[in-house]
């Protein structure tokens, strides 16, 4: 049995508390980076959501966990609105697999 975690700034993640996510507030990118490692290492989390604006800065760290089945680190848009980074991640996966972006718009 696993938990679902979410990392982000207070305004973005507070609401997720009510639906049973384990909420981790991160005021800045560095804290968010440390949190990712800590949560991933604990092995209790199967899914870790992270808000887009942090994910963009931490893409290197997130890519490290891409190839193991647990945890899945998934970006969600934050309170600031969708930056399109999550969609970009899908695109980059397609590009990695196919060699070209064939999704279109």
């Amino acid at each position, binding site marked *: 049995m696993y938990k679902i975690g979410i990392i982000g700034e207070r305004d973005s993640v507070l609401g997720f508390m009510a*639906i049973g996510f384990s909420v981790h507030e991160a005021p800045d990118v560095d804290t968010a980076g440390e949190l990712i490692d800590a949560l991933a290492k604990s092995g209790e989390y199967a899914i870790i959501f992270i808000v887009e604006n942090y994910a963009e800065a931490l893409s290197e760290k997130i890519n490290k966990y*891409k190839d193991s089945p647990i945890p899945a680190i998934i970006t969600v848009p934050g309170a600031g609105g969708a930056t399109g980074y999550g*969609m970009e991640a899908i695109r980059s*996966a397609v590009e990695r697999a196919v060699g070209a972006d064939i999704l279109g718009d």
Partner: protein
Amino acid sequence: MAELRVNPTRMELKKIQARYATARKGHKLLKDKRDELMKRFLDVVREDKLLRQKVEASLSGVYKSFGIASAVSSPNMLTEALMLPKKEGKLYVTYKNVMSVTVPVYSLEILGEGGSDSYNYGMAFTSGELDSSLRELNGILEDLVRMAELEKTAQMLAEEIEKTRRRVNALEHIMMPQYVSTMKTIKMKLDENERGNTTRLMKVKDMMVKAQLAGKNNEAESDEEYSEVTQ
């Protein structure tokens, strides 16, 4: 094309032929694997894309009403209201094998579900926007989990496809041509040896025939001499 450095013998030729046959079989299998992986991958990605669009749209609604809620109530009160969730999400993970890639399958179990009365706070101090934001968030919970599953699957399949593609390309463009050209070289060398051998044999035979002829002639001459003497 760089060739393998091997002795041009029949033995090596046999070995390389066997390896070439294996490589060809492997190439065909890997190519099939790549095609099938690609098919599955694209299905997953298409679904994921639609789901993400839906989730992102709902989330922006959630944040909007949540923003209003946090504007009209003090931060402390908001934290207090949300601090003790009524429900607890438990996530069970099983694994599925997609073309020898192990991908997770999530199943969510929510404990303490109270239907419409799932708010974990009293109505007195919180705003209605909070209710609607949480209701919407509740609505996309399953989608969020499904999206996570799809995205993880897509990531893992992408990696496997990349690996398989590299293997297919390596076999197709490096290994197999290498074997082909090495086999050709060995065959040419062997043929050359064969021809050299034939030529040598012909030459030797020629020499032997000549020697024999010369011997016969000598014999014939000496026979004549002998008969002359005896007569």
